[in-house]
């Protein structure tokens, strides 16, 4: 792998709340200009880790380095954080809220006004500029929150479930915007439960469960390391062969085809051969990669 500049370095970080361990000995790097998928079930310690990165909380052990130094007020100005649980001031004009959030990131008022106009235009919300939050639909509010995250032109974006509450059209739209930001060589940490979305967007992933790291690496590497023992099959007949536990460990139905997990030491060639010998009419027989969803479920459930 080519050595790339590292935006964020998390080294042996632990965080405890009383007897409860939120994060345990977690280490990972986020490389500059990549989309980093930060995955894990609820309560795995994602939010705690993110809060430590943005400087809301501090680790009990280990250290976190952002752009080569420890988090500080100046560094906070270079982060755009979209929390999972988020909101806006209910009775304040959109433009006033955005100005305030920009001011808190040390953006001058003139510059903020210019960018607010740009982003409202980009999000097709210009006519809502002087409206109050309560006048906006939920989806519009989500987009305003996204604007507040990118308004100060941050180098690192941390997006926690950015698509929740958005309709499919706006999801696609936001994905485009994220792709644009990536093209501007911004580093993006992307936290989600939606494995399909993660698969589409992420270059690298980190999966944590019960406060510990489970899997990490580039999406390619993770998938490759998960083995190539998955087969998609569309066929008529041959049921007896599929029930042979020496060949097939597990079958799942996917629409009009079946996904087969090969038994240990079983060979795909032998499986294909015995299917044909047993008179199965085969439409499709394909070695496939595991989806991120499969990996997620397998790793979390420990299968």
């Amino acid at each position, binding site marked *: 792998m080519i050595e790339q500049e590292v935006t964020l370095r998390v080294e042996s970080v632990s965080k405890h709340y009383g007897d409860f361990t939120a994060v345990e000995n977690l280490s990972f790097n986020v490389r500059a200009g990549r989309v980093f998928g930060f995955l894990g079930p609820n309560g795995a310690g994602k939010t705690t880790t993110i809060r430590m990165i943005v400087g*809301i909380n501090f680790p009990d052990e280990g250290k976190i380095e952002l752009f080569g130094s420890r988090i500080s007020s100046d560094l*906070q100005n270079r982060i755009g954080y979209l*929390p999972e649980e*988020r909101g*806006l001031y209910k009775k*304040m004009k959109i433009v006033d809220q955005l100005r*305030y*959030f920009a001011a*808190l990131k*040390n953006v001058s008022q003139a510059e903020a006004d210019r960018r607010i106009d740009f982003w409202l235009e980009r999000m097709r919300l210009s006519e809502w500029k002087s409206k109050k939050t309560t006048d906006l639909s939920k989806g519009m509010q989500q987009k305003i929150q996204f604007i507040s995250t990118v308004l100060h032109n941050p180098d690192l974006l941390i997006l926690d479930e950015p698509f929740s509450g958005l309709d499919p059209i706006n999801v696609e739209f936001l994905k485009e915007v994220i792709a644009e930001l990536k093209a501007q060589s911004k580093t993006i940490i992307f936290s989600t439960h939606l494995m399909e979305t993660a698969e589409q967007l992420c270059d690298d992933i980190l999966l944590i469960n019960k406060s510990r790291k489970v899997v990490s690496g580039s999406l390619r590497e993770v998938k490759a390391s998960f083995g190539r023992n998955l087969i998609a099959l569309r066929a008529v007949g041959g049921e007896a062969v599929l029930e042979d536990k020496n060949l097939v460990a597990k079958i799942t139905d996917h629409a009009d085809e079946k996904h087969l997990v090969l038994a240990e030491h079983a060979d795909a060639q032998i499986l294909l051969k015995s299917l044909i010998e047993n008179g199965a009419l085969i439409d499709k027989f394909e070695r496939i990669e595991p989806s991120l969803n499969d990996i997620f479920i397998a790793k979390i459930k420990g299968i």
Partner: protein
Amino acid sequence: MRKFLSVVKHEYKKIVLKWSFLLATLLFPLLAAAFAVVPALIFSIKGEATRIIVADQTGKIASRVRENLSSEKMAVKASEAQKDALKNLNASQEEQMKRSAEQMGVSFNFVEYVADGKSVEQLKRELNTKITEKEIDAYLIVPANYESSDAKFEFFSRKAGDFVANSSLEKAINSAVRSQRLADADISEDKLKDLSRNVDLSVKKVSEEGDEKDDEGSFAAGVIIGLMIYITLLIYGQQIMSAVVEEKETRIAEILFSSAKPFELMMGKLVGVGLAGLTQLAIWVVSALVLVGVGIAQMSAAGINITIPDITALTIIYFFIFFLLGFFIYATIYALIGSMVTNVQEGGQFAMFPVFILIIGFYLSFAVIRDPNSNVSFWVSIAPFFAPIVMPVRILAETPPFWQIALAILLNSLAIAGLVWLAARVYRVGMLMYGKRATIPEVWKWIRQS
């Protein structure tokens, strides 16, 4: 520092640029004026004239009662009562009630009736019929033995609850009988007036410097000052709490905390809202000074001399200093509460405590006005939590030595430092706790851990 100022600016504008701020700023003086004027207005609504028969078998009392209740006499009495009320602002509640009752005109319409030669029973029977037939509203039976000590005057009325009319009538009868008794004893009315004239007692206060000073009016001013501080602290404390709860409830806190230090955010909020409160108070003080000035000018034009406590520039500066001390004490408590609870309703329950302390402070200021130099006044006016209300009132009643004022400022500043230290610790953790209210042991743990 730049972020802190952004927060201050944001919080200040958020309050001051609202219609409700403008409305409250204008409405409070109006409301205060209304409270002073409305009761007088209500009492001044005249009831219908009471049709009355004075059944006087002696023929001596009726004419005197009539004269005493004539409209000219009533008018003179009413205006005297009015002057009295203005002079003695510190009269007891009861006296004030009576006086305002006298200010209202009560009118009687005398119906002719010949009572001679009828027994008391006969009179009652006849007159009761007149009442039931609504020919008259009331009648008074003057006993023949009016001069004896067990003479019994009897008054019957359809409107027995009209205490104003009753008290006027009682006075009129008393004075009529007294005049008649005097006349019987050959003492003239003028002679009696001369003998029973009130002494002219003018209450003056000797200040520390030994000057004489008129004391009238300082009670009213003290109450107004106390009330103004009390209300402002309450309103702005609640403002702080709901602003904090909003940021917590909407999860804006998470975004804010990732942009600036929690301490900067909390202090920025306190200072911003504090400045808004100061703005409002300054408007009120200026308008109060103008109103009082105009009022005095008008009253002296009307020939009524009242003195107001001398309010110097220093008094006003002290007033603002103590307002700010009070603001930071109570606002910090409210911010602390806001960061512990999950919604405004829950906050309201906790907010009982500061409100309770504020109310005690407000009532203590009455004790201080009555005796500004007692031990109680001293301790209460330097004590944290109470001093912000009590000390300005005490300064107005009688300026204590400077060291006491300085001590009050010092003690309350220390209290603020302690409270801010405490609140900052709770705020940092509490603002990111969603879903449930923090318990006291939890809060205690946050304070110790950070």
